[in-house]
């Protein structure tokens, strides 16, 4: 069995300036805080972030806003981090706001090898701009395209040494979807267990998606 276990510092060596990085978590819950901190410490910059939100100033990817790690945020919500709005209004941060359900489907589509999905969400709003509209059975839909990352940073409540992941309660959110949609997937393990300790039926992200387990 390939050894996927690395330290947090070794793991972030794979992240380079300018990459597209997907980060699990919802308002910071289920976010890989130690990986996020290590990216700040290493001075990585110009990342494009794919995440549900920009959390709050001291939490989750909120720390990347404060430390100006990212140049573009593809997120559904920035309202809980005043610093994000400030940087957007000052033209220092580019924001691509995506409806939350559409964000989930776009990331999933990339992971599932779909060329896109049709959603009614956003019809009649600014979300329509520049998108192809397709009518099915008399109802209008937007064609939303896949969204893929170079690296995904996830947080797993229980991770086995092969890379199978289990997410407790509301920490799951975007983590299992992002696991499918990045060239390199790094999971920060809250608890690392031996192979076999996670029941095969209960695994939420199969090991084949995970490249690095960060500890």
């Amino acid at each position: 069995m390939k050894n996927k276990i690395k330290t947090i510092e070794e793991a972030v060596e794979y992240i380079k300036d300018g990459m597209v990085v997907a980060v699990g978590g919802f308002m910071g819950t289920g976010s890989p805080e130690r990986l996020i901190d290590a990216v700040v410490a290493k001075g990585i910059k110009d990342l494009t972030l794919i995440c549900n939100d920009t959390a709050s100033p001291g939490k989750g990817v909120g720390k990347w806003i404060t430390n100006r790690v990212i140049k573009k945020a593809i997120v559904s919500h920035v309202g809980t981090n005043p610093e994000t709005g400030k940087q957007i209004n000052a033209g220092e941060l580019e924001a691509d706001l995506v409806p939350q359900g559409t964000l989930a489907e776009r990331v999933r589509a990339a992971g599932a090898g779909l060329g896109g999905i049709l959603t009614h969400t956003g019809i009649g709003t600014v979300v329509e701009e520049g998108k192809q509209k397709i009518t099915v059975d008399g109802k209008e839909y937007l064609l939303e395209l896949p969204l893929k990352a170079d690296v995904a940073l996830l947080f797993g409540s229980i991770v086995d040494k092969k890379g199978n992941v289990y997410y407790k309660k509301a920490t799951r959110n975007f983590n299992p979807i992002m696991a499918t949609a990045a060239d390199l997937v790094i999971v920060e393990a809250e608890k690392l267990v031996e192979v076999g300790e996670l029941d095969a039926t209960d695994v939420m992200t199969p090991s084949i998606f995970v490249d690095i387990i960060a500890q």
Partner: protein
Amino acid sequence: MIQDKDKKREIIVKRVAQELKDGDLVNLGIGMPTLVANYIPEGIDIMLQSENGFIGLGPTPKPGEEDKDCVNAGGQPASHVLGSAYFDSAMSFTIIRGGHLDMTVLGALQVDQHGNLANWMIPGKLVPGMGGAMDLVAGAKKVVIAMEHTAKGEHKILKKCTLPLTAEGEVDLIVTDMAVIEVTPKGLVLTELAPETTVEEVIAATEAELIVSENLKVMNV
């Protein structure tokens, strides 16, 4: 017309709660809509969805009893009730977009007589992002707007929204501190008045045209 701010909120929230039916799955938006949970009628079993990934949202835990793995869609400490289920964001929006949510209750900046809703941004000022609001409004079986009838004297119920829309023609019901208004193909129908409120006051506080229902009642709150 009710003047007291707290009393206004209470009326809105109590009246919205009357829309709940046994077995409903409901999503309550951040802010005032959240308070609807405090007025669920007795004998009625409601499950609340939290769009960050579960159904069965329970009361806010007491200080010291928080679980870092359980938060609501606002990122605040939360709990789950017996019989709950957690899932990922794709499933959360399968529920929302797929028409499995019986009702969503949201606030509004503006709503108009075509059922259009604007509640996610003020250009040049507020850019919070739409979060799950666009999916909720496009996907829920019933969209209820809970808000004060006017904002510092400015109309919020308009002939046509001027702010960027959240969704087009999806609003079903508007509940305010002054009235209950149904969105119908014919236009906005005033069906209930708040206590101490007159039809004239509602009309004056509403830019949109109102059809006064033949069965106009006073809210039972």
